[in-house]
């Protein structure tokens, strides 16, 4: 009796049970489809500045390539080049001449002369949603004076 039981057990242990991968495959397929549907090559190029929360909007306008001006809670940047410090709701430590932020104006003019973009009058503007119009207006006015009167405000889609 004992031998018969042992024999049955040893036969069972030799058979390697196959893993049922079907449910795992289903799960991975769903994840893969979801990720492929959400991927967007355009948004890969768009880097949001640190210390910045973009405003929410229902605009359906897509991403445009142009020179990027970033106004975060701590600094003002063009692309990744530092322009000025920001404290509270003010740009500090730089020359401001008649409402024009001088280093921003000079850098934007340099970008404009070197730019290969089709539309040389457009700026992509990233700014924190809690800023007041006073500081935004200063940056926008300077950009317009430097030859960039058209803006694309970067927003987070609702």
């Amino acid at each position, binding site marked *: 009796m004992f031998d018969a039981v042992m024999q049955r057990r040893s036969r069972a242990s030799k058979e390697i049970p*196959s893993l049922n*991968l*079907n449910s*795992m*495959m289903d799960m*991975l*397929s769903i*994840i*893969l489809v979801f*990720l*492929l549907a*959400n*991927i*967007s090559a355009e*948004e*890969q190029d*768009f880097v*949001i500045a640190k210390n910045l929360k*973009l*405003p*929410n*909007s*229902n*605009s*359906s*306008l*897509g*991403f*445009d390539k142009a020179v990027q001006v970033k106004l975060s809670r701590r600094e003002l940047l063009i692309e990744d080049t530092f322009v000025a410090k920001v404290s509270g709701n003010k740009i500090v430590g730089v020359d401001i001449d008649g409402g024009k932020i001088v280093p921003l104006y000079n850098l934007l003019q340099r970008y404009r002369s070197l730019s290969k973009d089709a539309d040389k009058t457009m700026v*992509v503007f990233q*700014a*924190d*949603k*809690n*800023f*007041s*119009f*006073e500081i*935004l*207006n200063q940056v*926008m*006015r300077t950009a*317009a004076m430097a030859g960039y*009167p*058209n*803006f*694309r*405000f*970067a*927003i*987070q*889609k609702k």
Partner: protein
Amino acid sequence: MPRIRRPKVEDLNLIPLMNLFVTMIPLLLLTAAFYHIGMVSVSVPTQSEEESDVAAGKAAVTMNIQMTGKGYTLTASSGTIGEVELKSLDALIPKKSGKYDLEKLSKYLEKIKRRYEQSDTIMVIPGKKVKYQDMIETMDAARQMEATVGGKKRKIPLFPVVVVTSVVE
């Protein structure tokens, strides 16, 4: 009678496919964007030799939305409509429980758009203290409105061209 032998059903080897999926998923997770970035098109007024932005020719108006601490002050400008008629388009939309009344603004602008269908430009004039988020919401409300047509939600374009300017002091 000969015994019929049924062919043995072999399991499909899914391991290479699994390997592919397991490599692709981390790669896609690293590059996926879980929030979507969009753009709002805006311009600032500039001096130019081109034609004025103020609507001319057909009956059209440019709406000016002044954002103050109390709410919206709306005025209209046009190259074709008389002053008396333009004055009748002026309106005040006060804040509702401390917030800008976007719904009322959309409805008012829809009324103007129905009357002057060729109109497409709004001039947003925020006060110094107006928050950027409020500006964007105002532009959204002025650019288009959501309406239910035949049981379906649709976006109706209102004033898609947005110009931002400041109050001249």
